[in-house]
């Protein structure tokens, strides 16, 4: 079946081309058919190819298909080669399957929008770029997909471009991720300079021979690659763009800024694990950044009013968990959490979009409330997603994936008790803000009348995603009960086993503590927002707590900090240098030319006698010179 691999990215590309070239002429229903149909077909091909691939394991652990040579320079040749292994299969599955559901949802969600075709064209292009990113066999092709998803993210955040704030958000996302991308490009140059190749599998095999473990070069290379991942995955210190990216339509937030694109950093680190495995410093940096991000973003999510911003910060926080897992060396746990997170976060965003749509574009959770009985389908599916996000023990997928990360954050070779404690408090905070969001949205009094309810095309994807958010966890059960490790067994041909520390405490204790943290968080949220809402008011009156609240609400002041540190100096310098110094040279040349022209044009006096004089004098001069020489 490997000869059909190219169809997976080609179908969305075809959809994009049709919609971009002929979108204006097509009717709405055919736009929806092309836009959603291309992704659905792509998902179907993924199922067929992926099924054949898994049936052939482990004999042929990787499918590769070389389509054509991109370009050749001397000894370096970049090929358009797709390569499918289990790691990319997981990503392709998530991208196409969740992508297809989100596209179906969008056909209803964007129905009233003027730019129906533009929306689906951008979405299809995004899916194509993301598939290129994960299927690429060399880093250059991956970089093509990497930049492609960045472009689509920009286009879709600024989709409603009439509002200037949306355009600003799009530019911010583009600029901030560009910082990471520039570092990543330098990392690619370094890899090419040292390894002489950009083919990922070749780098993996020769990494041990060309780099000394823990040498400076490998650490610098790994950190440069990581910087690219931090930008795309909205981790500290480049996380500021993601909350603003919620300016785009909800399906965009679900697909790009929750399920797929923002996890590209996770994919990059997992894909280049051969390099990261050689540098202990780089792994420590990843773990610390992940832990810091998950705590910081969790606390920020606790204070937000806008339901989409809560979800955005929670995405940052959950990707922080994935980075933490990558940092401590629990490669498969990170990918497992990625998959589960993609399901429940896409679900939460889509459900939030349905709520916002029904409440006449009301984003503020404090103005929602009482939706439990009015929107039952959305409520039950949102509940399934929230259970998974809060990692409620035993019944939710999020528990199994997050518990694994918590466990490895102490016991894996790179783990430490401090990282575990941060992750555990993060779990408590996650449960607390999830409960807060649930209670504010669905319980209590209704503050806004409900408009039309979402139709079947919107609820069906919600139900499917809800089923997966609960069931996906059972692909991998903890070692102490069930010991069912389907997912990590599948990934082991690609990713190394998690190395454990020498003496490890009992896993039961950890699970109990994780469960207690979740329940504690739920109770905290329940107490403050359901039982005793008055207490929140009294807490708010405390000046110190109120300023802390403001600090957290602003995302720990990162925006203001960057504004002072980078944006304003930049604007200041560009103001001083309005008449650019280097420009003076060129304006000088242009001015001199103009002056000389004026001088010459004076000789064009119109007087015939002058011209004849000129002729005669010239002839005499030339003859004189001839005679003299």
């Amino acid at each position, binding site marked *: 079946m490997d000869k059909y691999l190219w169809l997976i990215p080609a179908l969305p590309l075809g959809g994009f081309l049709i919609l971009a070239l002929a979108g204006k002429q097509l009717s709405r229903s055919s736009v929806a058919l092309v836009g959603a149909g291309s992704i659905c077909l792509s998902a179907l091909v993924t199922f067929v190819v992926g099924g054949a691939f898994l049936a052939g394991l482990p004999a042929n652990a990787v499918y590769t298909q070389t389509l054509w040579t991109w370009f050749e320079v001397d000894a370096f040749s970049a090929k358009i080669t797709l390569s499918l292994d289990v790691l990319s299969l997981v990503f392709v599955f998530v991208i196409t399957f969740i992508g297809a559901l989100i596209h179906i949802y969008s056909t209803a969600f964007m129905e009233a929008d003027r730019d129906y075709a533009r929306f689906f064209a951008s979405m299809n292009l995004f899916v194509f770029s993301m598939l290129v990113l994960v299927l690429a066999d060399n880093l250059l092709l991956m970089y093509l997909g990497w930049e492609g998803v960045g472009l689509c993210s920009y286009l879709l955040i600024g989709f409603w471009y009439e509002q200037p704030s949306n355009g600003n958000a799009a530019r911010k996302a583009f600029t901030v991720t560009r910082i990471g991308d520039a570092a990543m490009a330098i990392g690619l140059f370094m890899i090419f300079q040292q390894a002489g190749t950009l083919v990922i599998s070749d780098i993996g095999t020769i990494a041990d021979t060309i780099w000394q473990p823990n040498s400076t070069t490998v650490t610098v290379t790994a950190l440069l690659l990581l910087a690219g991942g931090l930008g795309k995955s909205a981790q500290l210190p480049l996380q500021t763009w993601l909350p603003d990216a919620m300016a785009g339509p909800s399906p965009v937030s679900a697909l790009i800024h929750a399920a797929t694109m923002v996890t590209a950093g996770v994919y990059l680190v997992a894909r280049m694990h051969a390099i990261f495995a050689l540098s202990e410093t780089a792994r420590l940096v990843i773990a610390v950044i992940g832990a810091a991000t998950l705590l910081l973003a969790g606390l920020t999510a606790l204070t937000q009013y806008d339901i989409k911003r809560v979800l955005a910060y929670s995405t940052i926080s959950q990707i922080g968990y994935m980075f933490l897992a990558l940092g401590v060396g629990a490669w498969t746990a990170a990918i497992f959490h990625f998959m589960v997170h993609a399901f429940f976060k896409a679900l939460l965003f889509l459900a939030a979009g349905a709520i916002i749509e029904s409440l006449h574009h009301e984003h503020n959770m404090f103005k929602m409330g009482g939706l439990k009985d009015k929107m039952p389908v959305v409520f039950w599916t949102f509940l399934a997603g929230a259970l998974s996000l809060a990692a409620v023990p035993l019944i939710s997928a999020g528990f199994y994936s997050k518990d694994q990360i918590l466990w490895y954050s102490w016991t894996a070779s790179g783990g430490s008790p401090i990282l575990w404690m941060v992750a555990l408090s993060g779990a408590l905070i996650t449960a607390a803000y999830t409960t807060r969001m649930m209670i504010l949205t669905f319980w209590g009094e209704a503050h806004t009348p409900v408009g039309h309810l979402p139709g079947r095309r919107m609820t069906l994807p919600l139900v499917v995603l809800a089923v997966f958010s609960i069931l996906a966890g059972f692909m991998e059960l903890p070692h102490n009960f069930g010991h069912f490790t389907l997912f990590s067994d599948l990934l082991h041909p690609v990713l190394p086993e998690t190395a454990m520390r020498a003496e490890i405490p009992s896993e039961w204790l950890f699970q109990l503590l994780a469960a207690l943290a979740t329940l504690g968080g739920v109770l905290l949220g329940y107490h403050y927002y359901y039982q005793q809402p008055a207490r929140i008011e009294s807490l708010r009156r405390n000046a110190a707590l109120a300023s802390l609240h403001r600090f957290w609400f602003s995302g720990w002041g990162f925006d203001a900090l960057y504004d002072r540190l980078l944006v304003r100096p930049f604007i200041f310098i560009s103001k001083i240098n309005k008449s650019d110094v280097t420009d003076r040279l060129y304006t000088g040349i242009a001015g001199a030319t103009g002056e000389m022209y004026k001088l010459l*044009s*004076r000789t*064009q*006096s*119109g*007087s*015939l*006698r002058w011209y*004849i*004089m000129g002729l*005669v004098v010239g002839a005499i001069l030339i003859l004189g010179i001839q005679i003299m020489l």
Partner: protein
Amino acid sequence: MKTTVSTEVVVLLAGLLFALGIVGVIIRKNIIFMLLSVEIMLNASGLAFVAAGSRWGQPDGQVMFVFILAMAAAEVSIGLALILQIYHQHKSLDIDNLKEMNG
């Protein structure tokens, strides 16, 4: 009676005539006189050709003179027509008044 004139004298005369023509073109204000001066220059160069032809015993010099004559006839007819037009439009033949095509 046959007198021989040395070539040098004829060429000198041609040069003199040519210089006279140039001076005429430069200092004269009336376009008709300028045209006349140009004719003098042409004939001066024709004279030089004839002198050179007789010096080398070749017919080429006289052939060139016939060419120059033909060209001068064409030039005069076009030049006079232009002068006529100029006089119609400007009511003047003073070259210093005709400075429209400047700068």
